[in-house]
């Protein structure tokens, strides 16, 4: 089934560089007086939700914003480290909107909608202007101008950053914009509230059922439009770099109410994470991709060295250059350590599977800064007129430079691993980090439920099958600050006479009843196993069979196993406490229930996609050198329509047609 | 909210009154030190301070107000600060993050207050009685003898010494802290801290020295 007449992507006509402008020139607007009559619900307060809530409130709409954390400032965007891309070309290295567009589509392995990506590139520069105006303290050079660095998969330096805390600074910028609107009374903020369901009235999204996580009460909230900005679903793997509370539930609830879910199998496994240390592990910690600017990734070339390292008799620093395998530099000479994330992750897995992993579990490779320390140290010694041949001095100066660039990351590594990364190479291994898939949206960012929008990581987005580093922050803020505030007006212009949406209607009552029943079912269940037991079990299946490399047999098994866990979950789960008051286990139970459905659809999507592209690697479809082999027949967005159970979901295909970019083999050699 | 009812305004007021009292302390120790050098010079200086109308009727009231203000504001802030944490910790491990001195200004302050009471009783009240109640004739030479007389009792000297040790502790935190409260924390801060430290140690020790000197020499 193809995306039918009901849900066209609604991309504008005209040359690609004019589409967004001509779209904005033609859409319907809501006049300022009428905006005061319109309510909008925003679920999630990360970069996308926070910036959207602030911008919509500023335009004059009445915004109700919801987050499950105790403050909007704690949304998981805060943890993004490396940077944000923008085609400013401040470095004069040949960057342009087109090149950012090109890199993003290519980086995504030609599985993104090109009109959306071009628009993203077009507004990217505005984001930086906006954030600087808000007082975001980006890194600057000695001339006082903004500094840039380079990220994986591109040949220019277009990444703006604030040490290793770019996400934090950008989110606090959006939070400050929200604060301004909260103070004006234009945003009503609901902290510690979780969206439990979407309410649809006469075919349109008209509100949500939210749970006050402190009192346990269910609340009805109405609006003329509902914006889902609830982030990604990486926690379906149990272990990921996502926050403990990150979940798919808001997105999954709207999916169950009619929003199609696109490309669930496109998941980003990030190459530079701290390896798992044991069964107790609750989450994984990412080390910014920016580390690959200066760090070199390697494993020992000889198996006896691997054995000696694992037994602790050999230190990595004692291995001679000639006995090290810098496998990324070897396999991809053009991009070296800065290949895109999917490529770097698979290459690390390949080495570890071949028996060259360097920690006790055999699942780690080295990320080594020794060369960078010496390079920076020598440079600094020369600049400051000191002896560049003095090894101790060079080491000291070099470590200082590395500390200014990555100090917080090095400190974090040392806290977790208890090793000093200035002296010994870091150990890293890939981990689930970001989900390119998500709720299907059209050019307006509207889902297949009229009046229901999805922005940021929650939608299936502009990243195709693989996201380039520093592009998530760009997309979240682009959606929230500069895209949704326009496109939503096009829909709301028809709603100016509707008036306030009442909540004492059968639709709200039915939705609330459904939520109440599920909560009661969990509390009253006479099971014996805590929620995490099932979540871990699901995560293990996902990682082993639906993880970095997939095959038909494993995927089929995974689908059956997930179904079985789901059945077991409803029979055996034990949720302590009661319905009233704060009950984290109860909240977790609801989230895991949704993950148990999503996981199956995820595997089903991976099984359907008989090709390898980006983060999706099917063992049946690879080149003789082990690279991903795309198939033209799958040049589409797989959008799944809910139909009872995940196994019965209907597939809709949005064919991707590239007019402005030549579809080539993605090579980083 | 008015400046003086704000938390920062109150701290600024505390600092300004503290710096004023510190400047007085410097003057006081300077005059007292004269007693070690020569009884005559001490008498001269004391007589000047005791009879000069500007000192007597302008500076003395300001000083008393300054002392009162510093104490009252200290209590107001202490009350405000205590009520900011109505439920106490079961376990608080403060020595890991701050100095004992900085956390106990109210106690060192209270001991100093007690001492000031004694000091008033010992010196200031007799002085007022002598001059303004009994209207005795000015005697330029009585000051030194009175001073020596006060330091005869070892218990009093002991209490005097302990009070000045407490003053030292109060100053060790308070002097440099006043600058922080006034917003001065810059490249001069290390120098300010060193100077304040030296002052806080030297001045109280000088007072103690004077007391001991007279106790043992007369």
């Amino acid at each position: 089934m193809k995306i039918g007449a009901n849900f066209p992507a609604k991309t504008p006509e005209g040359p690609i560089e004019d589409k967004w402008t001509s779209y904005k020139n033609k859409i319907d607007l809501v006049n300022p007086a009428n905006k005061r009559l319109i309510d909008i619900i925003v679920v999630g307060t990360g970069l996308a939700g926070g910036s959207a809530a602030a911008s919509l409130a500023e335009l004059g709409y009445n915004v109700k914003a919801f987050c499950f954390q105790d403050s909007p400032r704690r949304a998981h965007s805060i943890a993004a480290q490396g940077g944000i891309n923008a085609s400013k070309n401040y470095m004069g290295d040949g960057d342009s909107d087109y090149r950012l567009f090109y890199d993003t589509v290519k980086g995504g392995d030609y599985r993104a909608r090109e009109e959306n990506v071009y628009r993203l590139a077009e507004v990217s520069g505005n984001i930086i202007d906006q954030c600087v105006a808000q007082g975001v303290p980006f890194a600057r050079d000695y001339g006082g101008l903004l500094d840039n660095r380079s990220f994986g998969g591109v040949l220019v330096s277009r990444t703006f950053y604030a040490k290793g805390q770019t996400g934090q600074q950008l989110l606090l910028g959006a939070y400050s914009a929200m604060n301004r609107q909260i103070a004006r009374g234009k945003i009503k903020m609901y902290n510690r509230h979780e969206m439990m369901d979407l309410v649809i009235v006469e075919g349109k999204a008209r509100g949500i059922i939210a749970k006050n996580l402190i009192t346990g009460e269910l609340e009805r909230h109405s609006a003329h439009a509902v914006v889902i900005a609830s982030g990604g679903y990486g926690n379906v793997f149990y272990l990921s770099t996502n926050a403990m509370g990150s979940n798919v539930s808001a997105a999954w609830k709207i999916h169950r109410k009619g929003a199609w879910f696109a490309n669930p199998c496109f998941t980003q496994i990030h190459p530079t994470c701290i390896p798992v240390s044991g069964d107790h592990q609750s989450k994984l910690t990412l080390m910014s991709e920016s580390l690959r600017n200066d760090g070199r990734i390697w494993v020992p070339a000889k198996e006896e060295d691997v054995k000696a390292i694992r037994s602790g008799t050999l230190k990595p620093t004692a291995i001679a250059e000639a006995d090290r395998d810098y496998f990324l530099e070897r396999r991809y000479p053009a991009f070296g350590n800065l290949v895109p994330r999917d490529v770097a992750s698979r290459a690390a897995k390949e080495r570890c599977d071949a028996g060259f992993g360097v920690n006790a579990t055999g699942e780690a490779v080295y990320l080594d800064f020794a060369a960078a320390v010496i390079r920076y140290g020598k440079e600094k010694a020369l600049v400051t007129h000191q002896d560049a041949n003095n090894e101790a001095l060079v080491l000291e100066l070099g470590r200082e430079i590395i500390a200014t660039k990555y100090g917080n990351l090095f400190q974090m590594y040392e806290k977790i691993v208890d090793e000093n990364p200035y002296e010994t190479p870091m150990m890293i291994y890939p981990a689930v980090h970001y989900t390119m898939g998500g709720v299907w949206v059209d050019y307006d960012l509207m889902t297949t439920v009229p009046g229901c929008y999805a922005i940021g990581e929650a939608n299936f987005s502009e990243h195709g099958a693989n996201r380039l580093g520093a592009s998530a922050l760009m997309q979240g803020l682009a959606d929230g600050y500069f895209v949704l505030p326009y496109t939503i007006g096009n829909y709301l212009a028809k709603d100016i006479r509707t008036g306030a949406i009442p909540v004492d209607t059968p639709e709200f009552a039915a939705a609330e009843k459904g939520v109440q029943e599920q909560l009661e079912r969990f509390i009253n269940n006479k099971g014996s196993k805590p929620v995490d037991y099932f979540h871990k079990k699901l995560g293990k299946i996902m990682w082993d069979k639906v993880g970095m490399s997939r095959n038909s047999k494993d995927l089929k098994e995974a689908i059956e196993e997930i179904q079985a866990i789901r059945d077991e979950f409803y029979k055996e789960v034990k949720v302590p406490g009661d319905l009233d008051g704060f009950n984290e286990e109860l909240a977790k139970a609801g989230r895991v229930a949704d993950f148990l459905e999503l996981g199956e659809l995820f595997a089903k999507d991976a099984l359907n996609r008989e090709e390898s592209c980006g983060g999706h690697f099917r063992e049946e479809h690879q080149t003789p050198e082990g690279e991903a082999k795309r198939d033209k027949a799958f040049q589409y967005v797989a959008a799944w329509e809910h139909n009872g159970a995940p196994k019965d979901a209907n597939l809709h295909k949005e064919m991707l047609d590239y007019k402005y970019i030549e579809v080539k083999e993605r090579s980083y050699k | 909210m008015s400046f003086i009812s704000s938390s920062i305004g109150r701290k600024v007021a505390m600092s300004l009154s503290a710096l004023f009292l510190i400047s007085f302390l410097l003057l006081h120790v300077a005059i007292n030190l004269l007693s070690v050098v020569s009884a005559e010079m001490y008498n001269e200086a004391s007589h000047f301070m005791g009879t000069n109308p500007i000192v007597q009727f302008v500076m003395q009231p300001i000083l008393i107000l300054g002392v009162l203000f510093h104490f009252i504001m200290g209590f107001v802030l202490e009350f405000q600060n205590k009520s900011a944490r109505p439920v106490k910790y079961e376990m608080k491990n403060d020595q890991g993050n701050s100095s004992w001195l900085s956390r106990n200004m109210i106690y060192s302050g209270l001991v100093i207050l007690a001492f000031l009471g004694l000091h008033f009783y010992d010196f200031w009240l007799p002085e007022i009685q002598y001059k303004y109640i009994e209207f005795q004739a000015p005697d330029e030479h009585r000051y030194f003898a009175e001073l020596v007389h006060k330091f005869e009792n070892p218990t009093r000297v002991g209490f005097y010494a302990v009070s000045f040790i407490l003053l030292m502790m109060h100053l060790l935190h308070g002097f440099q802290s006043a600058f922080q409260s006034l917003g001065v924390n810059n490249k001069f801060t290390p120098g300010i801290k060193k100077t304040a430290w030296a002052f806080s140690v030297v001045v109280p020790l000088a007072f103690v020295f004077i007391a001991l000197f007279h106790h043992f020499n007369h």
Partner: protein
Amino acid sequence: MDLKLKIWRQKNAAAKGKIVDYDISEVSSDMSFLEMLDVLNRELTEKGDEPVSFDHDCREGICGSCSLQINGRPHGPDGGTTTCQLHMRKFKDGDSIVIEPFRAKAFPIVKDLIIDRSAFDRVQHAGAFISVNTSGNTQDANATPINKGDADHAFDAASCIGCGACVAACKNASAMLFVSAKVSQYALLPQGQVEREKRVTDMVSQMDEEGFGACTNTGACEAECPKGISITNIARMNREFIGSNLKS
């Protein structure tokens, strides 16, 4: 290792709380502190008891959700660390660990170890922003160069995670470090100049209204801040506040 935990349990804001003892065994030194509590909670759940509620989310030291007064110190004994980044290797077999919520009048307890830090949000609402529309029609980001030193100091101040350790550590439960970090960030940047005076008076006024104590310059906040925010920011805020009052 085996540990003896003494944990503050409190059903809700209105209820009376108390310390409850728990024994926990086979704790691995590679675990984070919160993973140790996860183990305890799993055991409690399996036994049919209610697990201990505590705030946590990112578990990588940046969201500022986690709190906990551990053996009398906010975020525990390790410097420059949030509770989620504290590892059990900092403890010894047989240790007794007292775990309490951060305590302050302005941070009422929600349940067990969870506190309500919305006072921080309200202080930010009072003025922690630059009034610029999010239209994107601002000047080019490089139109105003900013001295690198100022930009770096602004960043250092802005790296506050809003966890509340400064309040928890302060003997006066003062929020000066938190508020001054935000005031400093904007005071140091050219974009923050227009609203500079109003911002500091409004934020300080809200801070006082929330019931935080005053600053005694003990430096405990700085010593316990997991992000190493310096009390030079407090001096700057004092300066800003005095200046603002002198002008108005």
